[in-house]
């Protein structure tokens, strides 16, 4: 049994929130660079090069990449041989978000109640997903999620008879509906299977996978490639103003499901697809 002080979680969360809102991960920089090189629309190229310039300014001058520094979505993978000490873990995580968003000059975008809507002024609470895994480490993955793209996300409860074609059509139709609102070029996270909430959670988690990598399941890898090609043939393009780069990646996760169902969730993210992981 390894003991970990929850204050170490607070520190890590705070640092990670600040870092990922200013410095995009290498995989995302790479797919954006590729897009800029292969874009055929002149306006599209102009927009993509401004996005690359934006990343440079953000990093060099410590200005957040996007003013929507997101609601902090945090995946906690906690080793079953870890004993967390020194306080309540959930409070420690939220303290990290509070510290990071305050000290890092990040925008406070969270309201305390979905209808009464008073800003909590420190970006808490985070949305936290816990899983217990083998081992004696704690892995923290943070993905601050902007809502321009979050608002365009969808869950479809398809029928088993809809099959692969139905799934592909659902993903493409969600992207089409998102259009310019989701700040294309987008990253598309997809969850197939499980239950209503499980597929949505997989779609969110799929966004944290390195852009440019593929599913280990051969037919899913093929689907990721095929759907990406079809999305990029839609012509929505950078900023929705035309071009061949509508999406930078399609990441799909799957899970066993019920004999009667085929749930599909499509979680759309903009080109500022922030994800960062750290192991304590």
């Amino acid at each position, binding site marked *: 049994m390894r003991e970990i002080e929850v204050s170490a979680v607070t520190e890590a969360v705070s640092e990670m929130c600040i870092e990922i809102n200013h410095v995009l991960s290498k995989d995302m920089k790479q797919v954006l660079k590729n897009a800029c090189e292969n874009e055929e629309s002149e306006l599209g190229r102009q927009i993509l090069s*401004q996005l690359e310039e934006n990343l440079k300014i*953000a990093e060099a001058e410590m200005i*957040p990449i996007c*003013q*929507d520094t997101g609601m902090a979505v945090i995946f906690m993978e906690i080793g079953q041989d870890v004993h967390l000490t020194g306080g309540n873990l959930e409070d420690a995580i939220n303290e990290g978000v509070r510290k990071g968003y305050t000290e890092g000059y990040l*925008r406070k975008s969270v309201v305390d109640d979905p209808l009464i809507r008073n800003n909590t002024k420190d970006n808490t609470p985070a949305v936290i997903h816990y899983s217990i895994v083998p081992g004696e480490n704690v892995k923290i993955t943070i993905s601050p999620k902007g809502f*321009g793209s979050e608002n365009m996300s969808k869950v479809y409860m398809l029928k088993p008879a809809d099959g692969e074609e139905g799934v592909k059509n659902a993903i493409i139709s969600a992207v089409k509906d998102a259009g310019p609102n989701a*700040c294309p070029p987008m990253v598309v996270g997809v969850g197939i299977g499980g239950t209503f909430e499980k597929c949505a959670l997989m779609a969110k988690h799929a966004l944290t996978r390195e852009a440019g990598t593929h599913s280990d399941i051969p037919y899913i890898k093929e689907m990721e490639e095929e759907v990406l090609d079809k999305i990029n043939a839609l012509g929505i393009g950078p900023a929705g103003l035309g071009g061949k780069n509508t999406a930078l990646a399609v990441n799909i996760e799957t899970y066993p499901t019920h004999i009667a169902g085929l749930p599909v969730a499509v979680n759309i993210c*903009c080109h500022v697809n922030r994800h960062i992981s750290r192991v304590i």
Partner: protein
Amino acid sequence: MTRHMTVPMSREEKETLKNGDFVYLTGTIYTARDAAHKRMYESLQKGEDLPFDIKDQIIYYMGPSPAREGRVIGSAGPTTAGRMDKYTPTLLDLGLGGMIGKGKRTDEVLKAIERNKSVYFAAIGGAGALLAKAIVKSEVIAYDDLGTEAIRKLEVKDFPVIVVTDPSGVSLYNK
């Protein structure tokens, strides 16, 4: 075509704009997003004055991240315009000159743009650091309690936007 223009701009100047024009704006614009629009709309319903004279002015749908010491503003890119659609025709009919945001608008908004010979510009979504460099002054003028959603008066210099709905009311996104 690429152009440099000052804001606020006259109706005649606006009528020279065409969808797809890349325009660098210099002058004064105002920020307002969801909560400020809701509050302005409720003021109008109660017969009260708006917190600033919107006549011929341009509203930028934007809520910045906080400014670091010595800086004018934090990250400052556009938010999705469609969420303001409920309120926009009323503001345009009262003389609002134009808007800067991103994404599609409803037919009601497009008709109100045509009716009032207004204009809707898009700034590049997710380019908040780059856009912040074109803002030279920022001052909260109303609804301070709304934090990032307060109404700000901004001075901009060569602020880059693209015309997505010119005064004819046709949207470039529907092309």
